[in-house]
């Protein structure tokens, strides 16, 4: 007999490993997908997926069975990426002072699509998304893929609703421009 999520949460709160496994099974693909779409790196997405579930286990006793788990996980996952980027950026800024960091940017250029089979239909979309900032990629996915409202996005990213609105707009413009560019290149 399948378990309801509420039953899983109640058992998980008690430290039941089987319930935890069920919760992981039900959420891991979505979480991985979200993380991959933010980072475009399968390795990073896997690491953050693991970390998100580790946090879930650590905070299991605070879970409220009235609420679904996925939004909680999603928020943790998004913030793992944001925190990591913050560290990376500050590190980069520091390193640049000493001119010792010319060409090491783990994610942003070139190898984002590692391990990803090139799929002809969508490869130009991936290229276009690849050239967008992580902020833009993230917010486009939260809106289009996760179908979150502006308020939900604002809460998850810790920004104002007005910022959500303008960032989505700018992300859409940037994506459209990139797609147009690749289209023009293809046509020549």
């Amino acid at each position, binding site marked *: 007999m399948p378990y309801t999520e509420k039953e899983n949460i109640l058992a998980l709160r008690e430290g039941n490993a089987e319930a*935890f*496994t069920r919760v992981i099974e039900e959420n891991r693909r979505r979480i*991985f997908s979200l993380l991959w779409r933010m980072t475009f790196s399968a390795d990073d997405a896997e690491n953050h997926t*693991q970390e998100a579930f580790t946090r879930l286990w650590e905070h299991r006793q605070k879970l409220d069975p009235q609420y679904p788990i996925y939004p909680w996980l999603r928020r943790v996952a998004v913030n793992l990426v944001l925190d990591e980027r913050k560290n990376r950026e500050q590190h980069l800024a520091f390193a640049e002072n000493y001119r010792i960091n010319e060409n090491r940017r783990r994610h942003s250029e070139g190898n984002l699509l590692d391990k990803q089979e090139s799929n002809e239909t969508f490869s130009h*979309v991936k290229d276009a998304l690849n050239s967008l900032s992580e902020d833009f990629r993230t917010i486009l996915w939260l809106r289009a893929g996760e179908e979150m409202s502006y308020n939900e996005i604002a809460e998850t990213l810790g920004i104002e609703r007005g910022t959500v609105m303008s960032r*989505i707009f700018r992300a859409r413009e940037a994506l*459209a421009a990139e*797609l147009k560019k690749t289209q023009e290149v293809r046509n020549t």
Partner: protein
Amino acid sequence: MNSNHPREMLSAYLDGELTAEETAVIEEHLASCEECRVTLEIWRSNDKLITGIVEPASSEMTAENIMDTARRSSNEQNIHSISPQSRTAQFVAFAMAAAAALMLCFRIPWDITESGPEINSKPAIAKPIEKPEEDESVFENDPYSYLSVDISNNVSVTASAPIINNLDMVGNLNVGLNVEPMLNQYEVILLRAVTADEDEDAGAELLNIQKAAKNSDLLTKTQSARAFTISAPDYDEHLRRMEMLLTRIYNVDESSAKDEAPAIQKAISSNDLIMRNGQLRNALQEYNEKVNKKAMESQSK
């Protein structure tokens, strides 16, 4: 162009995030503006394109693996928070963790040859250290001497390479990864140090720790303080442990410790210094990689 076209509102319109009045305004505009109608359709189809991309399979992750790793790493994180029965045992437990963190921090050599480390009761209050001049040759020649970062409040921190090199381990202490083999070695000595003052070897080690601690700065204190207050259940306990750390390990007198503990606590909660420690480490790592690469290149020539 955009000033004539309410594009941001158009985007929100696509997402159904406008009020009834705003919706009416946009729809009126759309009725008369083909350019915006086209844009809207492009955006709409791009949204679909985004959701059409298939992510790669996360091949190695099964729910069981994730569960095992999650449980293992959160258990390890609690290694130092197992509650001992007595207050003495409690102190020994966290003093061990703290001192081990410190020793890892400083990579203290057991056969330290320098004679007679001076210990005095002068409080080792953290003080801003002057930033070295931005002379690149200094850095190029000896990255182990000066790595400095500006901290947002204009305090500069200078750290030496041994500290930086071992930050990983302090980090590992925090998250409870595999430092146990290493810890065991230190724990034995530390246990002796904190339990038996008459033990000469242990006493010497304690002196070494204190000496290292004396030369340290807020940065290092923050690391070690975080490592061993992380399991404290509340703020007061945090402060109590921190004061303990400062008086017993850093040889700070009690009243200074009381003053200093909240400042370090603040640094911990802001996470600022800890993060910057990470930056220093990364920078050093990159520097070393670069040097190694250069050496390899010149060898191959």
